[in-house]
């Protein structure tokens, strides 16, 4: 176990390194880094302006732009050599300095701090919805395997897995918010309860397709587990069927679901970009999309790095979670 842990930790560090390096490359090697950071301001001839050799129609504006450019150079260490630049940039990231949006002169960490809670609430609710739907669904499907309910649910899950997130969101928005008006059509933040309530529809949009894939995995694993002797033993002990399902068969059947749980967080994050857009939730996803469209690259890069690193760490934790799920792993 200790050796395994060390191996996983080394891999974790290596992947974090690679992920940040990819982000760094996107900024530094895909086009001019300064242009990526500040946009057209990069094309100002600041030295000329400083020296007064270049006349500009609005000198004040140009001067302040040039200050911004200088700030950007310092912020992203653009005057240093590439390897040094990378090291400095990564240590900035690690210490929570996510860079600066030069379009609205805001530190990205502040933007993240403002927008992150909404996205986290959405993601957590989506996972709750998907597990809450998938576990009973999978248990009943496996308990009545190949009966009418199971067959129907196979078709249903196949259908759900074929609906793109954004399409499902639009359909649910139309049906539940506009047509039947059960849920609000847009984000509300006045009260916590109202906030949670307005998040239900987005969470269902994200969670439902996930529930379908969880259900399929859980059902398959459960059917295998139900053939095990210890399930027979539990029946011979006279325990009722549902107790056996939930107390004995469920936990050893959760491996695939737990595996996908970490991975699906990635799909959920991707989905949240879309869903936040549909339901007007001011979260990280909406922020990054807006930033891409505004060409506000520092924000894009910082959020991508944050998300990717979180994702890597989540998958690392999921791996550790296995040892709780199957105590045999601990001594292996």
């Amino acid at each position, binding site marked *: 176990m200790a050796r*395994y842990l060390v*191996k996983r930790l080394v*891999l974790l560090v*290596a*992947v974090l390194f*690679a*992920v940040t390096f*990819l*982000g760094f490359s*996107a*900024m530094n090697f*895909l*086009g001019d880094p300064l242009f*990526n950071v500040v946009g057209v301001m990069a094309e100002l001839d600041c030295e000329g302006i400083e020296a007064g050799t270049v006349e500009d129609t609005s000198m004040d504006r140009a001067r302040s732009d040039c200050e911004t450019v200088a700030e950007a150079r310092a912020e992203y260490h653009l005057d240093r050599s590439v390897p040094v630049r990378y090291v400095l940039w990564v240590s900035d990231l690690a210490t929570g300095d996510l860079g600066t949006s030069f379009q609205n002169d805001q530190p990205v960490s502040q933007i993240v701090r403002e927008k992150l809670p909404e996205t986290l609430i959405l993601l957590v609710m989506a996972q709750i919805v998907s597990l809450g739907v998938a576990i009973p669904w999978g248990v009943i499907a496996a308990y009545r*395997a*190949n009966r009418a309910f199971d067959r129907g649910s196979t078709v249903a899950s*196949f*259908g759900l897995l*074929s609906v*793109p*997130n*954004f*399409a499902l969101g*639009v*359909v649910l*928005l*139309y049906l539940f918010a*506009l047509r039947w008006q059960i849920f609000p059509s*847009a984000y509300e933040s006045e009260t916590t309860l109202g906030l949670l309530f307005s998040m239900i529809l987005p969470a269902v949009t994200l969670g439902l397709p996930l529930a379908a*894939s969880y259900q399929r*995995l859980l059902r*398959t694993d459960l059917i295998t587990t139900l053939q095990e002797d210890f399930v027979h033993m539990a029946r011979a002990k006279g325990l009722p069927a549902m107790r056996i399902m939930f107390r004995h068969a469920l936990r050893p059947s959760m491996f*695939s679901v737990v595996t*996908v749980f970490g*991975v699906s*967080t*990635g799909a959920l*994050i*991707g*989905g949240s*970009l*879309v869903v936040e*857009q*549909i339901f007007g939730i001011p979260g990280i996803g909406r922020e*990054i*999309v807006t930033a*891409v*469209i505004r*060409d506000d*690259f520092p924000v*894009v*890069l910082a959020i*991508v790095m944050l*998300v*990717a690193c979180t*994702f*890597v760490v989540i*998958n690392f934790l999921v*791996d550790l979670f296995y040892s709780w799920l199957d105590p045999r792993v601990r001594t*292996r």
Partner: protein
Amino acid sequence: MSARGRPSRRGRASRQRLLQRFRIVRLMRSRRGPEPGGGSEEAEVVRRRLGFGFWLAVIWLLAMAFVSLFAPMLPLADPTEVAFGGPRESPSLDAWFGTDALGRDVFARTMHGARISLAVGGFAIVFGMVVGGGMGILAGYYRGRLDQGVGFVFFVLLSFPALVLAILITATLERSLLVVSLTIGILSIAPVGLLARASTLVYAEREFVAAARVLGARHGRIIVRELLPNVVIPMGALTLLGMAVAVVAEGSLAFLGLSVAGDDAISWGKMIVDGAGLRDLQNSTHVAMFPVAVMFLTVLALNFAGDRIRQYFDVKELPF
């Protein structure tokens, strides 16, 4: 991922975890069934039936492919013609799917929208198969450091949520058809590559490969003549499933306004977001719902036909 020699149980488990990401684990499980040297897999080929639903799906896909190839030549309205009809007209005989806010013909736009979706989807999966498949085969055949390196690259690629990686790429480059296709192609490298690597590992230990090696065949010849044909089958069986993922990815990008730029670049995702404003959705539901329906049917057809093909080429099917 540690991948030296025969995969350890844990190595295999974590690889399987990765594969599950793309819902192809069922294929891998059954592929593992007859172990190398286990022999008669021909005897176990069962259930060679595709069924009615499969052909229905194929017909739909062929129709979509036809439309997207020949859309400009078909007697459709000009999809970019503003005020082809009045704004937000309901479906009628003139405009089957009605018109959108700018009075453009939704039917013509939906048909034209198939072009980008299918082009991107097709290109992406071919790109993934060539690049990812090639990397996977080489890694699985040569093992050792190459395998470790390639495995790491796949692992890193999978460490980004797909859409987030796509955004990082499209944020820095101009959003042309080629860039969008390449972006989604890059996303498909890792899953396809892992599959190719896993199948290569199985076949590289089979007798016919050993025989070729004993006969003094060079590595290149073994890879092309002996391994490639066997690895292409499982990869090919997943083409349609991969395309479904790619089509959805392109749709998502388009929905966010990050797919191919320009007014004449019509895409389902873009059409759906156009019709998804609250007022539009309330008063002229058809603008969003027709592209939603066509896109859903297309993805469903790709998934269904893909799943059938996967089962068809499977040596064994899981009992359910």
